[in-house]
C-alpha cells in the first residue's frame, strides 16, 4: 500500500472570476446597441409632452398641484408603460419568432441568462428614457419657479413601474412568441392602467391604494409645502411593482428550454420571491390609514417624515389686518387679501374679530377631500387660521377667482359665527348668511355656493338642512325658509344697530345658546 503523502499537490488552474461578468457586460452592450427601444422613444416623447406635461402647465406653480395629473395620478406611467411592455414583448419573442430558440439553447450560456441580458438592455433604455423625460419636465418646472418640493418618491415609483412593464412584456414575448405578443402586451398594459384608474378613483382605502394611479389620500397640496410627502405608500408601491417585475422574469425562466434543472429551480424561487414581495406590499397597503399628513403604513412609517417644513411667511394687509401665507402660495396673496377685505372690515371691532390672518397647513381627510381641517379663529389676539389647500384656488382644476373669494368669505364668517366643524345652529347659520351678504355674497347666491366643490362637508350639510325644511334634498334650494327669514330680518337693521346687536350677543351665539326667534 502506498500513501499519497509524497505526491505532489496538483494545483487547479486558476479560475478567471472576471470572465463571467465581462461576458455578461459584453452581451449587455451588444443588446443595448441592437435594442429597438430607441426607435419608439420619439413617439413616447411626443405623447409624454401631450399627455403628461401639457395639461400640467395650466396648474399653479406648486409642485403637488403641478404634478398631480402626471405623477399623482400616474400619467407618466400610462404614457410609458404600455409602449414599453409592447416593445419588450417584441424583443422577448425574438428567438421564438425567428425560429432560433433551439439554436440559442445550445449556446454556452443558459438561455434564461441571455434573455435576462436582453431584458436588461430593454429596461435600461426604457427606465433611462423615463428618468430623462421626467428630469427635463422637472427642470422646466424649476425654471418656471414652481414652489414646494418635487415628489421624488413618485419618480421612483414611476421608474420601477416602467421596469415592471418591461419585465411583464418581456415575459409575454418569451412565453408566447408571436407577432401578436407586442400588441397584446401593450393592450394589456393600457387595460391594466385604465382599470387601475377606475379602481383608484373610487377606492380611498384598502388594497387599491397600491395602484400607482390612485391619488386618494396621498397627493394633497399640503405635501411638499407644509410637510414632506409621506414615503410610506410609495415604498409599498415600489415593493409591489418590483415584485411584479421579479415574478415576471422568474416566469420567463421556467420553460424547459430556459436552462438546466438547477437554473429553472432558481427561476421558480425568483418568481415566488417576486409574488411574495408583491403580495406583502398589497397587504401593507391594506393596513394604511389616513394621517393628518397623508397615508401612513405603520410598518413603514418613519416619524421623521412628520416634521413640518420650516418657512418664512409672506404677508400683506387686508382692511388693516396682516394676512400671511406660506411663500409657496405667494401668487395667491392678492386674491386672499382682496377676498378677506369685506369680511374683516365687517367684523372689525367686534369681540373675537381676528387681529391677524395666517395660512395653516390643514390636514388630509378622506371624508373631507382635502378639507380636513376647518378654518378657525383662536388665540389672543385672535388669529384667523386658513387652510387653503383644498379650496377652489384660482386656475386650479377650473377654479375661478370669484369662486375662491366666495369660499374664503364663507369659511371666514362660518369660523367667526363659532359654528366649528359642523353646520352650526340655525341662529349661527342666519348670522353667517347676514355676514356673507355684507361681504358681497347675496342671499340668493349662498345656497349655490354651499354646494360648490372643495368645501368641508358641513357646507353640504348646511345646504341639505336648509333644503330639507322645504322638502328639497338634492339641489341647491332658493334662499328661503326660517333661517333666511331670520337673516333677512337681521340684515334689515341699520349697520350700526346690527353691529351693536352682534357685539352684545356674539358670546351667546358662539356657545349655541341663541335661537332663531331671539334674533332681532
Amino acid at each position, binding site marked *: 500500500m502506498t500513501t499519497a503523502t509524497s505526491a505532489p499537490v496538483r494545483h487547479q488552474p486558476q479560475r478567471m472570476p472576471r470572465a463571467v461578468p465581462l461576458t455578461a457586460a459584453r452581451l449587455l452592450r451588444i443588446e443595448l446597441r441592437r435594442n*429597438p427601444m430607441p*426607435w*419608439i422613444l420619439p*413617439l413616447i416623447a*411626443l*405623447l409624454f409632452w*401631450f*399627455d403628461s406635461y*401639457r*395639461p400640467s402647465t395650466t396648474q399653479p406653480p406648486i409642485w403637488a398641484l403641478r404634478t398631480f395629473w402626471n405623477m399623482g395620478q400616474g400619467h407618466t406611467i*400610462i*404614457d410609458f408603460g*404600455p*409602449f414599453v411592455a*409592447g416593445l419588450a414583448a*417584441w424583443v422577448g419573442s425574438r428567438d421564438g419568432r425567428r425560429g432560433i430558440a433551439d439554436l440559442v439553447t445550445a449556446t454556452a450560456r443558459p438561455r434564461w441568462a441571455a434573455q435576462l441580458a436582453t431584458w436588461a438592455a430593454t429596461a435600461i433604455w426604457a427606465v433611462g428614457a423615463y428618468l430623462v423625460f421626467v428630469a427635463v419636465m422637472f427642470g422646466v418646472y424649476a425654471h418656471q419657479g414652481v414652489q414646494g418640493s418635487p415628489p421624488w418618491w413618485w419618480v421612483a415609483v414611476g421608474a420601477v413601474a416602467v421596469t415592471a412593464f418591461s419585465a411583464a412584456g418581456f415575459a409575454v414575448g418569451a412565453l408566447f412568441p*408571436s*407577432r*401578436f405578443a*407586442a*400588441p*397584446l402586451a*401593450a*393592450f394589456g398594459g*393600457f*387595460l391594466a392602467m*385604465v*382599470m387601475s*384608474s*377606475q379602481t383608484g*378613483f*373610487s377606492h380611498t382605502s384598502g388594497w387599491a391604494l397600491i395602484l400607482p394611479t390612485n391619488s386618494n389620500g396621498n397627493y394633497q397640496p399640503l405635501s411638499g409645502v407644509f410637510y414632506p410627502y409621506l414615503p410610506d405608500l410609495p415604498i409599498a408601491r415600489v415593493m409591489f411593482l418590483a415584485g411584479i417585475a421579479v415574478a415576471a422574469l422568474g416566469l420567463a425562466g421556467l420553460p424547459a428550454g430556459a436552462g438546466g434543472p438547477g437554473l429553472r429551480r432558481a427561476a421558480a424561487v425568483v418568481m415566488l420571491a417576486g409574488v411574495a414581495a408583491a403580495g406583502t406590499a398589497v397587504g401593507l397597503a391594506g393596513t394604511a390609514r389616513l394621517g393628518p399628513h397623508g397615508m401612513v403604513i405603520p410598518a413603514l412609517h418613519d416619524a421623521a417624515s412628520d416634521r413640518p417644513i420650516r418657512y418664512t411667511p409672506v404677508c400683506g394687509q387686508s382692511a388693516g389686518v396682516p394676512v400671511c401665507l406660506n411663500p409657496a402660495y405667494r401668487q395667491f396673496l392678492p386674491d386672499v387679501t382682496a377676498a378677506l377685505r369685506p369680511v374683516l372690515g365687517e367684523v372689525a371691532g367686534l369681540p373675537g374679530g381676528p387681529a391677524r390672518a395666517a395660512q395653516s397647513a390643514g390636514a388630509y381627510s378622506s371624508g373631507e377631500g382635502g378639507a380636513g381641517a376647518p378654518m378657525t379663529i383662536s388665540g389672543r389676539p385672535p388669529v384667523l387660521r386658513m387652510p387653503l389647500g383644498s379650496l377652489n384656488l384660482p386656475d386650479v382644476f377650473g377654479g375661478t377667482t370669484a369662486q375662491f373669494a366666495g369660499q374664503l368669505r364663507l369659511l371666514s364668517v362660518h369660523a367667526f359665527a363659532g359654528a366649528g366643524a359642523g353646520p352650526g345652529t340655525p341662529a349661527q347659520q342666519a348670522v353667517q348668511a347676514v355676514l356673507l351678504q355684507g361681504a358681497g355674497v347675496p342671499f340668493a347666491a349662498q345656497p349655490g355656493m354651499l354646494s360648490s366643490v372643495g368645501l368641508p362637508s358641513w357646507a353640504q350639510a348646511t345646504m341639505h338642512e336648509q333644503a330639507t325644511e322645504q322638502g328639497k334634498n338634492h339641489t341647491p334650494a332658493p334662499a328661503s325658509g326660517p333661517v333666511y327669514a331670520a337673516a333677512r330680518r337681521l340684515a334689515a337693521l341699520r349697520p350700526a344697530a346690527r353691529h351693536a346687536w352682534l357685539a352684545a350677543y356674539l358670546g351667546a351665539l358662539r356657545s349655541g345658546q341663541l335661537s332663531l326667534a331671539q334674533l332681532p
Partner: protein
Amino acid sequence: MTAAGIHRPPGAGHARPASRRALATLRLAWLYLVSRRALAAVALLVALGALLWAALHGNWSVAGGAAARQLIPLVIETGAAAVIAVTTFGPFGDTERATGRWLPWLRLGTAVLLTAAAAGALAAGAAGGHLPGGSLALLRNLAGMTGTGLLASAALGGAFGWTGPMAYWLITEGALAGAWTTPWIWPARPARDLGGALCAYGVFAAGIVAVTLLGARDSGRRPAPE
C-alpha cells in the same frame, strides 16, 4: 436543338378550366392569409368582442362623466385595431414582392376582411350592455383607429403598426379629459356627427390606400428597424 421557334410555353394552348383558376386564386388568398396569421387575428378579435361584452355587461367604467365612460370600450377597440395592424407584417420581404401583381389586392382584401371581422365581433360584444354612442360610434371609432394602425404599419413596419392606435388612444384620453371637440378626436363627437365620421373614415381610407399600395414597411424595399 434550340427553343427559338417556341413562342408559347407548352400547354399554354389549352385554356385552364375556370374552376382550376378559381381554386388557384383561393389557394393564393388562403396562403396569404395564413402567412399573415389572419386566423389567429380573427380568434383574438373574437376574444376582444367577448371582453367588450364582459365590460359592458359588468358595467366596468372609469369614474367621471360621459367621456370617461367611453375609455374602456375605446381601449378594446384600440386592441382590435392593433391586432389588424400587425397582420400587415410579412416575413418574406422582396421575395413576396417579386411574385406577382396580386399582392396589393391581397393586402387590401385582408385589411378589409379583418376590419369587417373586428366590427362584427365588437358589435356582437356591444350587445352585452349600453355602449356609449352605440354601434355607429363603434364602427366609426374602429375604422379610424384601424386607419391609424395601417398608416403606422406603412410608416414604421407591420410589427410596430400597433403603436398607431395605442398612441391615438392616449391622445384621445387626454383630449376627452380636456373636453376637446375637434373632429380629429372622433370619439369625442356624437355618433352621427359628420365631421368626426369624415375624419375617421378618411384616416381609414388613407391607411387602406397606404397599405395596399406600399405594404407594411418591413415587407419590401424599405426595411423596418429591429
